[in-house]
């Protein structure tokens, strides 16, 4: 019997045409935990996330939710289980913020019937958590990049899924909103028991907020484990090709990384 709401990735390979991008990925994401996907640009983080969300079509018998192969699930069934906050969002048409958040309820609303009280309340709850209640009636085209990011997070929350996948959710946010969104994400795991998988570029945020980290390099999981075991200066140097210092954050006892310089050729000695 598989644990409820766990995501299992078993021996996943993925290629875009002839170009192999993921190789033999094995990972397991547990409910009640925040898992981080880290790795340099182009290492395959987004591709892995899209495979789990079935945006890209994974091979059969590689990705499971609650023990069910996701290739056997309909889009609607998946949407009730998994919500996704993509890396980039661009919306061409002039929807209101509330309209966009309400789209998160789409998997629950039958064709031709309209939003129920419950849908409206859920959307409002999601907007409150994401801190965008004041924007509800604004046009999606006239808000800032960080605000848009929070609207998309609210839409994912409105889906009320058990699993949430976030692709660099805080990369465009100011420091206050970075922390507040990451705290919210943590609440989703700790209080609502959701399975949270998030791609992060900021190693320090990952160290603070992730319970478990998968570190990708060239399409393979190079290292995985608790932040203090993965975020060591040897590993960071090897994977990211940078020189850095790693301290212990006195407040949280988590690793704290201070980058020094890149190991690019001609950039001093290594």
């Amino acid at each position, binding site marked *: 019997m598989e644990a409820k709401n766990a995501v299992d990735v078993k021996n996943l390979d993925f290629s875009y045409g002839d170009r192999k991008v993921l190789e033999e990925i094995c990972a397991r994401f547990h409910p009640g935990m925040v898992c981080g996907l880290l790795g340099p640009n182009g290492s395959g983080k987004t591709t892995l996330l899209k495979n789990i969300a079935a945006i890209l079509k994974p091979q059969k018998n590689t990705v499971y939710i609650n023990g069910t192969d996701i290739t056997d699930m*309909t889009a609607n069934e*998946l949407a009730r289980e998994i919500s996704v906050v*993509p890396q980039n969002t661009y*919306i*061409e048409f002039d929807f209101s913020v509330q*309209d966009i958040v309400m*789209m998160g309820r789409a998997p629950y*609303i039958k*064709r031709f019937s309209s939003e129920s009280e419950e849908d409206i309340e859920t959307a409002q709850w999601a907007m409150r958590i994401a801190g965008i209640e004041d924007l509800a009636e604004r046009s999606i085209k006239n808000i800032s990049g960080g605000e848009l990011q929070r609207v998309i997070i609210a839409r994912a929350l409105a889906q009320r899924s058990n699993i949430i996948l976030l692709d660099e959710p805080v990369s465009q946010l100011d420091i206050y909103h970075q922390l507040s969104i990451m705290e919210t994400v943590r609440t989703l795991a700790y209080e609502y028991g959701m399975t949270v998988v998030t791609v992060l570029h900021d190693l320090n945020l990952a160290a603070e907020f992730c319970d478990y980290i998968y570190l990708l390099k060239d399409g393979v999981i190079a290292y995985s484990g608790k932040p203090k075991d993965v975020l060591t200066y040897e590993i960071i140097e090897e994977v990211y090709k940078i020189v850095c210092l790693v301290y212990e954050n006195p407040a949280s006892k988590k690793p704290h990384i201070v980058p020094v310089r890149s190991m690019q050729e001609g950039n001093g000695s290594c």
Partner: protein
Amino acid sequence: MSYLAKRKFYYSILLISVIVLLLLGIFSLFVGTANIGFLDVCRILASKLPGIQKLVSTDNIRGSSADIIIKLRLPRAVLVILVGSGLAAVGAAMQSVFRNPMAEPGILGLSSGAGLGATIAIVIGLDKTVLGLSAAAASAFIGAIATVFIVYNISRTGHRISPTVLILAGTAISFMNSAVIQLIMIFRRDRMDYIIMWTMGSFSSPSWNKIAVLLPFLLPGLAVILFHARDLNIISTGEETAKTLGVEVERTKKFVLASCSIVTAACVATSGIIGFVGLIIPHLLRLLVGTDQRVLLPFSIVGGAAFLLVCDTLARVAAPPAEIPVGAITAVFGSPFFIALLIKGKRSVM
């Protein structure tokens, strides 16, 4: 403004718009070269309605008047309403599917394909009628559908279709079709006038037959598009996102594009290429009622019909006895109005 807050309001406005459209329709019946009084028009119409026909007398109305109304002006108004509603709804739907505000009914090469089909029929002198339609119309329908079929297969990889490739392939094939039409016209100068008249689009030869042929394509097509209104909203925010929100993206795209193609092909085959309506009416209405397809599609249907009806009536009566091509009227009157709205919209942003 969000959809939820204004839904009720929009639906009452829509009801009013439908009434206005009907009034416009009746009004269009009594303007024209032959002078038929408004009351006579009403009586002729009433005399054809089952139930009340015995109550009205048409004794003192000339028989030719009744013929003009029943055989010419009424089918013309109905045809214009159907084509206007079809083209505008297709435009609105295509803009969502392609996430491109420049998308319009002709974008998949439909119009040019229809043009080529008609041209070929005209130059080889086919003058049979098929189901009460000219050979040119039938050939235009086939040309349009064949073109879409080619464009679709160019853009398909496996079971997925890329909107960008669709637009590019559609544009490329359109240019090719137009070039072939021009070449044909050079070699068959004697037929040039017919071809040009056909491609300009007009409602000058209406018939109940055309309507009977158009309806079985138009109504199911519009129904399928309306059925997917909410999915279209979500797809217009991005295909990958739509998948994660539970929309069967590829299937929806296929159904909607197939319906759009059939509706457009039927409209173009019965009345020639009428530009502008499918591009501008959805945008104009977006500025007025917002971008939610559950509101935008019904309004486009009514708005496209009303707009084309006004334009066609002007085309009939502006310079009697000649008729101005309706496509020219749509552009001449629609563009300034649209530009004014754009400028107003820009001001409210600044």
